[in-house]
């Protein structure tokens, strides 16, 4: 598991370095000189590894939280964790490989700064990591657990669903593990395949007692993560790994909170409501531009941010206005969280709907490797679904 994670990390760094840098390194080694041609010299799109399916749109610099600094998403996470450990002497961070900085560099520098009793590795055991985290939280201390990839959260499913989520309820509020937060890299990354690309939020959406939160950007990530850590309920915070380096914007250095269970209307519109979370927010944002340009359609774009408990009111208010709803996520269609949104919206806004609610999601398959570009709900699929809704 760890070896693959390092490979993925390395691949992400290579992607950031650019195709030229990659080939420069190989030429320097002398082994492949004259044998392999750099992809860019070829010009054949089919041979090139694909470019990202989205364009990250930074939000304007936030002015109300003091001094800001340019941060990417993993740096924003580090900043949130740094703030948390500074403020809360009981807070500890643990998981596989967090001590040296983590396979995605989210915990770099924290062990040196706060000590090895506060930032430490655990054995390779997700059910242990979460169970251990619950126990820390039961004593009232703050537990920040890392699951290396969301794809590996399943061994901890019993501890999350049967224990963490139910701790307060089953004890009549004598005990709780509200100070537990689980963080995990989430979503497609271009080459992650079955076990480094999953978006498992739907499994947890069905579990009363926990909160599931997914940020779209560095600024959102820090504020939402801080809210999860301070929230008095166990939270799962999924971090879109493809955004760790790709998303860069100005982020406040000081701590700040973004409220949970509040969706954000990031662009107002009148004809269609587009709902997404995480990376997909940037996809649907682009779809909104395409719709405006090509169809003269005005889209309202909503970032759901918290999956459960979700902000029904904001979404319904928007659909009452627009009459059309498109929900999009990478996770497979059947049983995906778009089903829940669709079902609730049609209950609450039936007479306002001008067209059936559209879901543009991953196919009902495991997440494939070489076929990723075909699998993901990209802007063309979303655009096409939107067009059909408009013409319904």
């Amino acid at each position, binding site marked *: 598991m760890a070896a693959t994670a390092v490979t993925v990390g390395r691949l992400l760094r290579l992607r950031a370095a650019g195709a030229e840098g990659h080939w420069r390194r190989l030429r320097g080694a002398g082994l492949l000189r004259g044998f392999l041609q750099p992809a860019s010299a070829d010009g054949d799109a089919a041979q090139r590894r694909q470019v990202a399916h989205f364009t990250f749109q930074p939000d304007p610099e936030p002015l109300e939280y003091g001094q800001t600094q340019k941060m990417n998403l993993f740096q924003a996470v580090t900043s949130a964790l740094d703030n948390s450990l500074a403020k809360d002497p009981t807070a500890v961070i643990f998981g596989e490989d967090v001590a040296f900085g983590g396979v995605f560099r989210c915990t770099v520098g924290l062990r040196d700064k706060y000590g090895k009793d506060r930032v430490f590795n655990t054995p390779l*055991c997700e059910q242990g990591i979460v169970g251990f985290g*619950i126990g*820390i939280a039961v004593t009232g201390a703050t537990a920040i657990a890392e699951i290396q990839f969301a794809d590996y959260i399943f061994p901890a499913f019993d501890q999350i669903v*049967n224990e963490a989520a139910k701790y307060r309820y089953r004890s009549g509020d004598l005990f709780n593990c509200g100070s537990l937060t689980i963080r995990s890299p989430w979503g497609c990354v271009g080459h992650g395949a079955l076990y480094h690309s999953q978006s498992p939020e739907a499994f947890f959406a069905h579990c*009363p007692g926990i909160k599931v939160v997914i940020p779209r950007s560095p600024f959102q990530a820090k504020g939402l993560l801080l809210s999860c850590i301070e929230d008095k309920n166990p939270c799962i915070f999924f971090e879109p790994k493809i955004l760790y380096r790709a998303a860069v914007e100005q982020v406040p250095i000081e701590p700040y909170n973004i409220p949970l269970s509040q969706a954000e209307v990031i662009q107002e519109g009148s004809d269609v409501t587009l709902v997404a979370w995480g990376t997909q927010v940037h996809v649907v944002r682009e779809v909104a531009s395409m719709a405006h340009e090509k169809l003269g359609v005005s889209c309202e774009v909503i970032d759901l941010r918290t999956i459960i408990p979700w902000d029904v009111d904001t979404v319904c208010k928007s659909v009452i206005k627009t009459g059309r709803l498109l929900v999009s996520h990478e996770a497979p269609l059947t049983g995906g969280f778009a089903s829940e949104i669709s079902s609730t919206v049609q209950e609450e806004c039936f007479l306002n709907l001008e067209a059936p609610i559209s879901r543009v999601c991953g196919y009902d398959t495991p997440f494939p490797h070489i076929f990723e570009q075909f699998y993901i709900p990209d802007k063309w699929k979303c655009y096409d679904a939107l067009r059909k809704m408009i013409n319904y």
Partner: protein
Amino acid sequence: MAVAAAAARVWGSSRGLGRVGLLLRRPGARGLARSHPQRQQQHFSSLDDKPQFPGASAEFIDKLEFIQPNVISGIPIYRVMDRQGQIINPSEDPHLPQEKVLKFYKTMTLLNTMDRILYESQRQGRISFYMTNYGEEGTHVGSAAALDSTDLVFGQYREAGVLMYRNYPLELFMAQCYGNVSDLGKGRQMPVHYGCRERHFVTISSPLATQIPQAVGAAYAAKRANANRVIICYFGEGAASEGDAHAGFNFAATLECPIIFFCRNNGYAISTPTSEQYRGDGIAARGPGYGILSIRVDGNDVFAVYNATKEARRRAVAENQPFLIEAMTYRIGHHSTSDDSSAYRSVDEVNYWDKQDHPISRLRHYLQSCGWWDDEQEKAWRKQSRKKVMEAFEQAERKLKPSPSLLFSDVYQEMPTQLRKQQESLARHLQAYGEHYPLDHFEK
């Protein structure tokens, strides 16, 4: 084949080398020198031919030998009293004061009495479910007595005696079983899922072994807080098969946590005997595999349990390391009211333990030989304890159940909007259809 496989492991991939050649070659530099005198040897900077592997601290051996698990002559069982309650080795007698030993006895017998009455109440349809503790009272009381009252307890479900030793009142045991308005758990769980914040007893949950890694986390937090607190985690030998047990043991050792793992090995996991639960030497033998100090004790000897727990507690807190105590005992009762154990074990077997090796009888013999108890006191106490239990029982039965609105609270610390809507929906439903629901038994 095993030899070739072992040799292949030493030499790496056997492709291209031939199996026969592998069988003849011996591992180690000396072997190489003999077969290929002209090949240059690569020397490490150390002149010693010692293993350098980060994964184990051990010497080389050139004899192929598998370690034999020892199950015929397993880890010995520590005891203080014989089956007749006589001290075997006086230096092991904890010399506890009369008052304390009487408390042991009264706790175990009161628990036994409560078990009889509540088991019967389930048979009569008064409560929905019950689990007795017959035969294991010694494991509860001996260990509870060795702890500080603020040491945090994570249990499985058969540790009511620990709570009872901490003076959890009969009224609250009954309230939880009846799910009435006095239940601190607000009626949410099946009977015997006790919890008490005041007495540092974490609420029981049904999934097995989930408490084990949690207890380790709590111990880690206690260590960081310099709380001078030990965490004790109870579980049965069946639960010890769960992955969570392995996770808990490994984490406790690697993260150096002040925790006592207390395994009640009572011979059965519902109908599954230990021969179908494990093939090694019980649970105690697993401890050393994790680097954990371990002991096996006679769980029906309350002083043995006491001594082992006391020493484990002292060292766990002083040295910040885990201890594993496997208390051998026997589950005299059925697994629960949903079980009839005559389906899988003989009455004779059960009777042996009930009559010949029972923690309560052994302690009574000890008390009597000290002159601290006699038949008259026994008779009086039986009458008194039964009266106490019956009174609490009758009161618990008369009380109302909590308001149905409590179905919705404590899911989160605050009630989410959507859940409040569902709560309102039920309220409206009951207004219209209330006659079909037993609302008279519930508070408004």
